[in-house]
């Protein structure tokens, strides 16, 4: 459904962030993209959604295609129209608008009033807390409530592919669990494809069908959930399980192990 082929991305004309990144999201899958800070996850997502320009970035090589369409240099509005919506990191609600208005902005490209109304009811179904908050100013909601508004707003565009950038950031573990359960439910019920960037590797891997791991602007490892869960490095670095009998310090192992297996 979504394919990145050898994509390079550069900021400000000089700083190369993505190096020949390859990624493939199949229809109906939940795909997770993991990696340390600065690995290029958010840049990958922004390249996909056509949002690099706002940060003075650009895709300089490779090809991004969505549903058979080349979207490498498409405008964000064309990409949303094609059926892909991204929820940016950092809870970007429209903070002076009400929750209801936020949700309706999500549907601004649609002219089918009845469909929009039905989708609003569906969003309220997934997030039963939202109807009561509908009249509230979004900027004063709690973090968990904002995240519901953001995902709801994205759903109002009726996407086929939903991209989420660190939805669990700053949420309590119980809320994170709930959130991932809801995302899983939405994916099943709506037949949605989901691409997810997460720091919370355990929660993300447990929900995903397939995963990619990025480092230094490259995909260094990818595999199905079972493969990732079974991989010793993933266990060590992302799931916090020791590789051997005695726990090894992260610092000792950082360079040596990772280079050896992933890049070697």
């Amino acid at each position, binding site marked *: 459904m979504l394919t990145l082929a050898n994509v390079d991305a550069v900021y400000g004309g000089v700083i190369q962030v993505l190096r020949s990144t390859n990624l493939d999201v199949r229809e109906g899958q939940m795909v997770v993209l993991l990696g340390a800070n600065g690995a290029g996850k958010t840049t990958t997502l922004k390249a996909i*959604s*056509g*949002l690099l320009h*706002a940060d003075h970035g650009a895709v300089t090589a490779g090809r991004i295609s969505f549903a058979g369409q080349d979207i490498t240099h498409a*405008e*964000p*509005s064309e*990409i*949303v*129209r094609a059926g892909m*919506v*991204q*929820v*940016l990191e950092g809870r*970007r609600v*429209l*903070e*002076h*608008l009400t929750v209801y*208005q936020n949700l*309706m*902005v*999500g*549907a*601004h*490209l649609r*002219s089918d009033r009845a469909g929009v109304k039905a989708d609003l009811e569906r969003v309220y179904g997934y997030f039963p807390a939202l109807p009561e908050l509908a009249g509230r100013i979004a*900027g*004063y909601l709690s973090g968990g409530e904002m995240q519901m508004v953001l995902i709801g*707003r994205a759903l109002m*565009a009726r996407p086929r592919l939903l991209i989420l950038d660190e939805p669990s950031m700053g949420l309590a573990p119980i809320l994170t669990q709930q959130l991932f359960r809801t995302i899983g439910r939405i994916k099943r019920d709506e037949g949605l494809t989901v691409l997810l960037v997460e720091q919370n590797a355990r929660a993300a891997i447990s929900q995903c069908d397939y995963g990619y791991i990025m480092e230094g602007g490259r995909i260094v490892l990818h595999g199905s959930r079972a493969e990732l869960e079974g991989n010793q490095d993933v266990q060590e670095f992302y799931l916090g399980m020791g590789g051997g009998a005695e726990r090894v310090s992260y610092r000792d192992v950082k360079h040596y192990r990772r280079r050896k297996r992933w890049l070697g």
Partner: protein
Amino acid sequence: MIEFVQILIEGALVGLVYGLVAISFVVIYRASKIINLAQGEVVVVGAFLLWTFTEGMAGIGYPLPLWLALLLTLAGCVAFGWTIERTVFRPLIGQSAFTIFMAGVALLILLRGLAQLVWGAQSRSAPAILPEGALDLGPFLVNTRLLIGAVFTILLTQALHLFFTRSRLGLRLAAVAEDHTTAHSLGVSVRQAIAVAWIMGTVVATAAAVVLLSGSILSLEVAVIGFKALPVALLGGMESIRGAPLAGLIIGIFEALASAYLDPLTNGAASGLLPYVVMIAVLLIRPYGLFGWRKIERL
């Protein structure tokens, strides 16, 4: 007492016209984050366009029906607003606030010069679109033209409010007003939204010109209205459509009171000064105005 109420009424009506110009500032600022210093000149150009299609055409022997003249004026200011955005401010997207400020100053001087070049510097009588005269309300006299303008301002405010909170295009503009990156991510074409905002701002400014000048004198000096309305927009809050007429009421009434009671003591300086005293006070005490958007900081 009757005189006092009369002053209040006049101040309120003039203030609502300031509010109308302030709305044009607000509409442009919300989308583009640019305070158009040349908005007074935009009002003047709008007024001259209207003059051209009414008195001007009649003067050379081709009088147009009023509806056609108004339609042509509307088309003219749509093109004018779009041109300003396209040629001056769009190329400056992403530049520093200082660059944009200087571009605003340049635009102000440029438009003043262009208006003089095209229409000449002499004063003219502006077309009388609205009925002149005064309405007798018991002991009070109300200027019909200003009354119509005031009612129009209030209706327009409500209409714009509904537009920005209900309609798809309005919500798009509201999203752009909040944050360009978020708007992009939702598939809003930010450039298109900014262009629409400039066109709307120019049309509203021209509507203000009609109300303000109907049957009175049209000259380049009219541009002062821009700098009278700027404090109104700041007081109301640069993002708030509904704040503008309210702030207009406040400033209009204070100005009228100052004009009646302080001007005789100050050689007429007090009423001219007052809006700017208010402006500086607003900037010092509450920079986001009465209803403007304050950055929401969550702790």
